[in-house]
């Protein structure tokens, strides 16, 4: 299984990458929305995408909207992973097509529990 981590912070990409590698994901990284777009051409390049909200060039919400605009991407699980914590933000992300929402800062357990909810990891 392949996971794409879209975050402009290298440290954050490393943290998330480490958790996902431990449970068997292959990691791809992108540092902004525009760079991430090419992985969502509908050819199944990734199974899971972790998307930060505030990104240079195309923000996370726009990226998720773009991903969901192509029905061939329907099977991709998308988690918005951000320091935005207002309820309206969570609602907006879900409406745009995010499957889950992780608020920063988070722990390894939080990430694993979300993946378990999505059926992407065995407890």
């Amino acid at each position, binding site marked *: 299984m392949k996971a794409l981590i879209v975050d402009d912070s290298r440290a954050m990409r490393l943290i998330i990458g480490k958790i996902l590698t431990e449970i068997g994901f292959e990691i791809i990284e992108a540092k902004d929305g525009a760079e991430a777009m090419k992985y969502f051409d509908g050819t199944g390049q990734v199974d899971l995408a972790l998307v930060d909200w505030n990104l240079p060039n195309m923000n996370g919400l726009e990226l998720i909207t773009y991903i969901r605009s192509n029905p061939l991407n329907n099977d991709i699980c998308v988690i918005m992973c951000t320091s935005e914590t207002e309820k309206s933000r*969570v609602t907006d992300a879900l409406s745009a097509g995010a499957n*889950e929402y992780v608020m920063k800062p988070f722990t390894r*357990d939080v990430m694993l*529990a979300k993946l378990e*909810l999505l059926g992407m990891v065995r407890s």
Partner: protein
Amino acid sequence: MINGTSSPLLSVDFDYVRQMMFDYSSVVLEAGKEYLVEARLLSIVQEREMNSLGELVEALRKKSSNKLRQEVVEAMLTNETSFFRDVKPFESIREFVLPDLISKRSAERTLNIWCAACSGGQEIYSFLMLIKEYFPILEGWKLKVIASDLSLRMLEKAKRGIYSQLEVNRGLPAAYLVKYFEKVGLEWEIHENFRKSIEFLSVNLGSSWPALPVMDLILMRNVMIYFDVKTKKRVLNQAAELMNSDGYLFLGGVESTINLADQFEIVSWKQSSCYRPNRV
């Protein structure tokens, strides 16, 4: 660090705390868990402006205050929990247990549910959210939902239904967060109708239980692990007595009734198991 708190716990003091935990909570503190006592009681030592753990244990020995004892017992309990913990048991409740109970109780339209070590409430609220999402049919039923714990502090938290960001992040589907919680400052509060549908009780599973209704479903997860075999047997037998014979008991992932209470039959559903007191 204040004076003396770094000095090691004397073994007589450790033994005192161990015995007290066993007497008041049935929880077994194994040898070698001195570090746990130190870690969990340090804040009490500091709050009470005592000089050392030894001084705290001395105060306990004098039995001057039940409040202090209660505080120490509660501080020693492990309250670890999360929303939809382990996921699978909730899937089996949704796909199998509740549909079965609903069909069997369709005449009485009554269900009695007990969450027997509810900690901060995440487990029972998860259950109620699941009902809200998937079993609108139960809205016309009489549901008795009891949540209990030994720890008054945890019961208070469960009653308030207010959770930190980290707590709602952990195991709670984001869709339920926006549907069933409101953000209050930095925390999240579950809607009042959930809180109002639960009766909260303080129950020590290790001693005699208050009069409770006959149960259709008992969640008693991740609490028996702290008990010795004798207590486990007693607790399971009491649970069996309290249940309808076609009711269901859920235990934690590493707990079971095997070799403890043989009247239970194991019911497996996908990757999780629950237990039915199959008395004839």
